[in-house]
């Protein structure tokens, strides 16, 4: 005889319980930032020409430039403790054809931290300013031309070069 079998059904109830952990979580990441700072020098002069008008040597023994004082801005980046220098040298003496007025007839006074007075020279660069470490240095140079009855008449010119160095 065949036995008839019946499978009894079983009902299952599944309860799902979700719970959150009470502990906090953190995550960290590092980033390396790198900045390159190179030695650099920028020089700005308020005037590219200086003009000394004719004058009576008896009444005007020293002639100021018509343009007035030159404002100088010397910006330099160098190592900590490094020396930044500003110098000037003339290409030659004042010349009008074959007539000459010595470069040293031109002198200047200075104002501003690190700036110094001096006398123009065509053979050797003369110090105008010097500073330690990087910075933005502003000052003024006031030029004067020594007047003299010994000068031959003419229109004299002379080129002057300024050099800012930030090693």
């Amino acid at each position, binding site marked *: 005889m065949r036995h008839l079998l019946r499978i009894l059904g*079983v009902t299952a109830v599944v309860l799902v319980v979700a719970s959150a952990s009470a502990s*906090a979580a953190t995550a960290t*990441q*590092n980033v390396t930032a790198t900045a390159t700072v190179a030695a650099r020098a920028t020089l700005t002069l308020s005037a590219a020409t200086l003009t000394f008008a004719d004058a009576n040597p008896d009444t005007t023994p020293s002639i100021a430039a018509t343009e007035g004082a030159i404002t100088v801005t010397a*910006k330099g980046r160098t190592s900590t403790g490094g020396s930044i220098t500003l110098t000037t040298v003339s290409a030659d003496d004042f010349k009008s054809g074959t007539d000459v007025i010595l470069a040293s007839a031109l002198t200047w006074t200075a104002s501003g931290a690190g700036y110094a007075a001096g006398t123009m020279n065509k053979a050797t660069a003369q110090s105008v300013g010097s500073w330690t470490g990087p910075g933005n240095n502003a000052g003024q140079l006031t030029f004067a031309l020594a007047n003299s009855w010994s000068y031959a008449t003419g229109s004299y010119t002379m080129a002057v070069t300024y050099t800012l160095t930030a090693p």
Partner: protein
Amino acid sequence: MRVRAATVTVLAAVLAAALDAGAASQAQTVTGTAVIGAIAKLNLSTSSITFPDADPDTVPTIAPSQGAITITAKARASLGATVTLTVQAADDFRSGTATIPAASLTWSATGAGFVGGTMNKAAAQTVASWTDSGNRTGTQSYVFQNSWNYAAGTYSLTLTYTLAAP
């Protein structure tokens, strides 16, 4: 034989009826438990940013060569909790004994929850914050303040980002 076949059929019917009258069901309960823990996962598109040298007169602020950083912050937190992303510098920028303040580094940001800021070596600064769990993405664009007052050198600085999911 006919008699035998008829007997089997009846017996089968009686047995089926008996089974139907005695049917029963049984219920069982199973309890399932799922633990959802707090998780924080942070991904940055780069682990380094580089600021090249530039003339302070013409380039007063310098952007990094790598461009903006893409940030992906994934966090699971308790309901209503605040998820935060902060950043802090380990020190100032250093090149030997020369330093540039960490505050010379600033950033702007895009993406919901992200904010701009200024780097700080003493206190963590907020980069972003959100409420509840989620997967958030944004960008951070740094700039470095240029200056004639910086000594020449190659400076480095370590930034630590922290994503916190309470």
